[in-house]
């Protein structure tokens, strides 16, 4: 399992490294004289700042390592170290700042760093949690198989629909064609369902486009018609249709959840990576301006 491997890699050896870094940083922070308020400007502050900057650069190197096949160490080892040393960075940077924060570029760099680490923590949680949920949801199937199954059910629905009166046939056909899966960023992450079908509901005359989230309305549409038919064959047809549409409803829920989980597994990186690059920019500004106005 990936989860266990990233956090428990080498029996958590990088957790101990990170802890050591934190303890040393803490001791350095405390060693600042009582007569001088702790800050990034004492010699201890300079050391903590240098360590933090070095950590940032090293942590960024994971992006390079991921793309390289000839580098030292496995990606797994690098990721484990990345996670733990990233957490340690939050400590070293905080000790460096000594809590002296305000409205300036230096504090901005700190807060960007905090967001990067927090997004990293969120990402680590997702990496260790969401794959399990995905596996449970897929029940051993690949997504491609889920869609193949959907295609089969779609065809079965169309076949059953063809036996129905035109109004019902149009509703079934349109509900399949107008089924919404995935979509934009928020549609995928929130599993929003914009499905519709063409039909008349609640005794309205004529056909209109009916919202059909979760396929509930088409099911109700077909179920409402079942008691009215006298033809036994048609009744059987409708009953079977309700059954197939129900299977389809469940399958669509799983597909949407699968897309949602996959989305979240990627989404945090769209925060983590750009903010990390921004952090480098802010760090450069921080260092330049500190020494420019020495």
């Amino acid at each position, binding site marked *: 399992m990936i989860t266990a491997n990233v956090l428990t890699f080498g029996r958590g050896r990088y957790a101990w490294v990170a802890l050591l870094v934190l303890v040393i940083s803490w001791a350095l922070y405390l060693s600042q004289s009582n007569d001088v308020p702790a800050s990034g400007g004492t010699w201890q502050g300079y050391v903590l700042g240098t360590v933090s900057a070095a950590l940032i650069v090293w942590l960024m190197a994971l992006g390079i390592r991921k793309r390289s096949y000839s580098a030292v160490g496995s990606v797994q080892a690098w990721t484990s170290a990345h996670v733990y040393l990233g957490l340690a960075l939050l400590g070293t940077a905080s000790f460096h700042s000594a809590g*002296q924060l305000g409205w300036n570029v230096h504090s901005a760099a700190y807060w960007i760093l905090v967001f990067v680490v927090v997004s990293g923590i969120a990402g680590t949680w997702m990496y260790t949690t969401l794959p399990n949920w995905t596996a449970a949801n897929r029940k051993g199937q690949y997504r491609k198989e889920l869609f193949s199954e959907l295609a089969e059910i779609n065809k079965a629905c169309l076949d059953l629909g063809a036996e129905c009166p035109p109004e019902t046939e149009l509703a079934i056909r349109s509900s399949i064609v107008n089924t919404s899966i995935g979509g934009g960023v928020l549609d995928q992450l929130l599993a929003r369902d914009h499905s519709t079908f063409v039909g008349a509901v609640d005794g309205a005359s004529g056909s209109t486009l009916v919202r059909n989230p979760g396929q509930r309305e088409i099911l109700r549409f077909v179920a409402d018609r079942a008691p009215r038919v006298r033809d036994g064959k048609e009744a059987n047809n409708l009953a079977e249709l309700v059954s197939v549409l129900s299977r389809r409803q469940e399958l669509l829920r799983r597909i949407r959840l699968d897309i949602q989980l996959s989305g979240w597994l990627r989404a945090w990186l769209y925060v983590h990576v750009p903010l990390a690059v921004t952090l480098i*920019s802010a760090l450069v500004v921080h260092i330049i301006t500190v020494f420019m106005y020495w």
Partner: protein
Amino acid sequence: MSSVLIRQAVERGGSKTFQDQQIDTDEISIGASADNTLMLQGASVEQRHAVFRISDDAVQVRSGGKHKLTVDSSEVSQADVDLGIEIKIGPHTVSVIRPPQGFSLALLVEVSDAPDGDLEENYRTSLLQTGLSKRWASWTLAAVTLIVTLLIPLASTYLWAPESGEPPAPVLSDIVWTTGDLHAAHQTHTQDNCAVCHETLFTPVQDSACESCHERTLDHATPELMLAGDMTDYRCAQCHGEHNEPSSWLIAGAVERCGSCHEFDSLGEGHPDFTGYPSADTASVLFDHVTHQGTHYTETNHDFICDECHQRDRSGQFQLTTDFESMCINCHGDGQSDVPSKIFHHGDQIVTGKHITFFSMPRLDLRSIPEEQIGIWPADSRKASRTGLGRLDVTHITQLLLSADPEVAPALDRLLGARVKLSKLRRATPEQMEDVVSIVWGIKRLLVELAANPQKTIESRLRRVHPVDSPVTGIEVIALSGEIRAEFVRETVNLWFPETGVAGLREELAARGDAVAEDDEGDEYRTIPGEEWVQTGTWDEDKFSIRYQVSGHADDMMRSWLETLSPLSLRVEGGPENHHAEVFEVLAEVEKGPGKATGPGRCGKCHFVEPGAELLWSRTIDHYGELEHTRFDHTAHVNASGVLECANCHTQGEAGGLLARLTSEEESQSGTGLSSFEPVSRESCSGCHNPAGSASDGCLTCHNYHVTEPHSGILALESAR
């Protein structure tokens, strides 16, 4: 002209069906909503997907919303409709085919019932398909950060800065580079203009920036010492940091910083003991703490409370000794005025004030001296008071004033050397009798001069025997004279010489060829300037004596005579007669030692009145610690903590009693008046002032840094090198 829409559907089994629809409008719309000319279903079919517009000469198709149309595989908003083009509408395809006769446009719509192929491909199921880009976001955010926080502030500060010198707008200026708030005073001065202190980029703040305001700041030590202490990087900012939190913090007083020169670890370890604290010269008044506490206060049933007499000043630093009029007089007064009556213990007798016998007619041995040689002399002067007379039977002050008369001085010294008394002249030699005669005429001259102008007489005679150029000021002349009136002297002389009076004496002297002053200058010889004043007593005549009654504590005549005489009152063994010393000794009664003086005024009972010494009546505090190396806040220690008592720190030594008293007998005799309190022990401070204690042991807690000559800066340091 009409158009035709041909809808083609694929039936189960693969057969195709066609439905034709004639349309007579000049607009054909296809989309998902029911109000279109042709309604098509599909997740990717927009409400109003494509709109065909037919005019006389052309047909155009455009998007019915913000979406793009896929026309022959290209994404467009609109396009000319030519024969053979294909427009994708979701899974459906619309083809422009050759119209039948009589129609201007024919559209073949291939309706797709269900998506073909891999179903997933019909949907966007990955974030990668949404147009999100990590790379784009990264570069954009990083660039914006660089531009907003570095480039724009740089440009606004150094390229676009207003010529007026005012700081640019806060959002865009270099103020975003601040590492924290400034001290309020510095903030007021700089007004967000960083360049006030940061004069040169990439160069630490230089002293010149500080000294533009702090121009009078004192240094810690001479450049030579600073150099010896290896303080080569010697800038204000070495100790004074800015942009701190809290912003009021400006000084680094770390032990390790000071310890680079002062080599000890802390107050508790290695710091020198406080041998001089309280300093040896703190006592200005002789006050026996032990007898006052143990005897006098107990007998009178009073509590002995330190701060009744030692009240804290406004700075909180000093427990100043209160003055006589506020405290001592409660016991050492007569209960009605500030005359220090009870202070005059004389044995068991309490004397309520004493006179100074300023002048006394000598009890001249008239039987041994021919009258023709001395002229008029009161016969009953033998009844003159014997109080306060010197060796020659005249008062000491008379003796001093006579010594200023060049005709008398040699005779005076000879007679004093021969121990002759004017009241016993039977055994006097003829030469001594000549000297006596000389002195008698000198006394007459003195009396006539005093009657003419006593202030002038005293000043001119003192000036004559005083080696200092200008020993007395105008107001001091008045003080020295005790404000005696010429009229009083005249009346007194007239009383003593009833037959002739002052005029007769003047005539007598004139007949001898002595030039004596007329009494026309009166009492206006010296006037008291401005708002100054002197406190003097009263004069009276008693048995051929002119006496001065001391006014009370701090009598100006007493003070002035003692101060004037003191520098000249050191006796040299075997040396010439010292008339100054005689007067001084009588007024101060120095021979009895400090604390025992019973002479007129009794100044020496409590004050250090020593011949040759500069008389310090009271200790004055010239400054409040800013120039002192060490400071101590009594308020913070006694009031704030509420637990400290004076005796916790100010303890009596082994030789002493409860609190303090005069030091040993020898020291009392020497008159140094050393405080008998033990120096405050270092441990009494380091008990709280230590690294683990409740109070800081930082050097600057008690010490001031800038205490030496004006700050000389690096240049001086370099020149010293």
